């Protein structure tokens, strides 16, 4: 019993726990959530990268060559590798959440989640192929 404690009759003090600043580190599912949210930073990074590339393109072949040079540095490779992992994580979590946000009903029955998520993955493969075809071969 603490000496300093005072109780007012009929007005018990409620105990409120402050949520720790590191709440997201305490539980695996929360940590996963934070990782998902942080993937947005890498999305933004990607946009910045694209903007640099485009800017270099508009400046002529030398600038474009320079930026390609930079892209070959180990730092850039590492950064892009990590970014790729995060954006993949974004893609997967995003697809898997669509059935939650957009349930589809056919004949009064709710389609199982995977049936709604699956077309996303198919479309993803197709779109990726098209993009690659344009960039590489187009």
């Amino acid at each position, binding site marked *: 019993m603490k000496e300093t404690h005072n109780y007012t*009759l*009929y007005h*018990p003090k409620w105990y409120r726990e402050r949520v720790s600043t590191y709440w997201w580190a305490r539980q695996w599912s929360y940590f996963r959530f934070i990782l998902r949210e942080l993937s947005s930073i890498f999305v933004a990074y990607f946009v910045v990268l694209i903007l640099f590339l485009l800017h270099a393109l508009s400046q002529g072949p030398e600038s474009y060559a320079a930026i390609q040079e930079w892209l070959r540095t180990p730092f850039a490779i590492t950064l892009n590798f990590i970014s790729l992992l995060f954006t993949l994580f974004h893609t997967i979590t995003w697809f898997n959440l669509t059935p939650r946000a957009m349930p589809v009903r056919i004949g009064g029955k709710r389609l199982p989640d995977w049936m709604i998520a699956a077309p996303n993955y198919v479309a993803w493969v197709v779109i990726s192929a098209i993009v690659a075809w344009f960039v590489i071969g187009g």
Partner: protein
Amino acid sequence: MDISSHDVLLVGGGGAGLRAAIAVSETNPKLKVAVVSKVYPMRSHTVSAEGGAAAVIKSNDSLDEHAYDTVSGGDWMSDQDAVEAFVKEAPEEMLRLEHWGCPWSREPDGHIAVRPFGGMKKERTWFAADKTGFHMLHTLFQTSLKYNAITRYDEFFVTKLLVDGGRVQGVVAIELMSGKIHAILAKAVILCTGGCGRVFPFTTNANIKNGDGMALAYRAGVPLKDMEFVQYHPTGLPFTGILITEAARSEGGYLLNKDGYRYLQDYNLGTPQPKPVLRSMELGPRDRLSQAFVKEMEKGRTIDTPYGPVVHLDIRHLGEKIINTKLPFVRELCLKYQNIDPIKEMIPVRPVVHYMMGGVHTDLNAATALTGLYAAGEVACVSINGANRLGSNSLTELLVFGARAGKAAAAFASETAEPGSHVVAQAMDEQRRLERQFLSKTDGRESIATIREEMQATIEKGAGIYRTGDLLAQAAQNLRRLQERFQNVAITDHSYTFNTELTAVLELAFMLDVAETIVQSALQRSESRGAHQRTDFPKRDDEKYLAHSLIYRNEDGSSRLEYLPVTITRWPPAERVYGK
């Protein structure tokens, strides 16, 4: 002490209480209504009701048939004027709930769907899958939020009715959160505190069903009616007492003994058919089914388990689809609590205390013998259920008589004077009693749990499915001894904040009173009728006992019984025939 004042006060926020509160507000929106409940309203035990609620809505059905089923199901102990009013108002009340949003199960064309139920000759039980009570309670609760005239006192435990000048004028209640004691005054009080299954050791009833309202009324000098009639439901899960709804049988489930034999055919309940037949076999009334179980047990044809003998409820032949759409909760409960899948395995079941036919004696408008005091729901006995309630009549009863109580109390409150100041002094006395007897008591020796368990064992032994004069007399004696020991009960928790030991001890006191009324009423009824089976008087005796028992509390704490003739209007007593 806090004092507040309202026009109409409800004790209890279950189905009956909420329906009554809304009825008061609709009758006279100016009236200030208070709902006092020891748990948040949506925790009330109405939430557990599974199977459904009966009301005539289909064209092949009629009010007379519903009335007849009810009267014969109750072994002619029901007051027939009450039954007629009940069946007549039932459809309208159920429709009202539909309009408030209750998710009733539907037919493909969008009309209300109905299912058969035990003891009913026609399919007339409305259902919301197998969570009917849950949906009804939440619909009522959510709808009640709309009415600004309704003030709620959530988690307030009522300890006493304030009576002065021959009328009730409010209650004393403990606010659990703070321990503060309140005098909540009102011109009219409606008791809706539900049943008292916890008096027994093995029950489907929740922890909060301790007969509080019955004891409150009894202590205030109001008679309790037909307390000897306690319903055993034939199919509870062993150990937990969790109910497997009658709907499991009405959808076509079989009851099988140790040898896989549909034993009900041996007990005058018809011949087995593959499909369910109304008022026959598994769809017989609950009293007869529970009694058949005991007979099977005596013949050694039940299955022994660590939690007592059981029989099997077999629904496997219904198939996965029906089970998942019509009985999903049954499956959920079996998987979760019994670790079996009823699609593949048989469900072990045994009779379990379920419902109280008796209760606070009221008239057709839910008025009790005490001016200003009304009662509705399981706590009350208007007497539609007689000696045995038919499944699915109770939920409807909450609505019909909840609404009637609300209207009557509203009318009464509109032309009645404010509560006087005398009752405040009474409330102070009650506060001092609570302090002295419980909160500041440090010298007790008896454990709450022990007294409670002994009480439960006593009443089970004396007033179980089959009773005898000797065992009842012994039980009465035991209960008196327990009452004495209770004076010496030990209280370890002296805190004002959320003191659940205090509520447990108050509930135990209520239960001891209620147990006594059950045993005394049963002792005096020397006949067998419905749920009251005396092996020493195995016959029904209409000559002497076509009458309700009314039990009163004497000044010295002892009880006395009176009898009131049953009201017969159109259906003279006859033999109860099932399976034909």
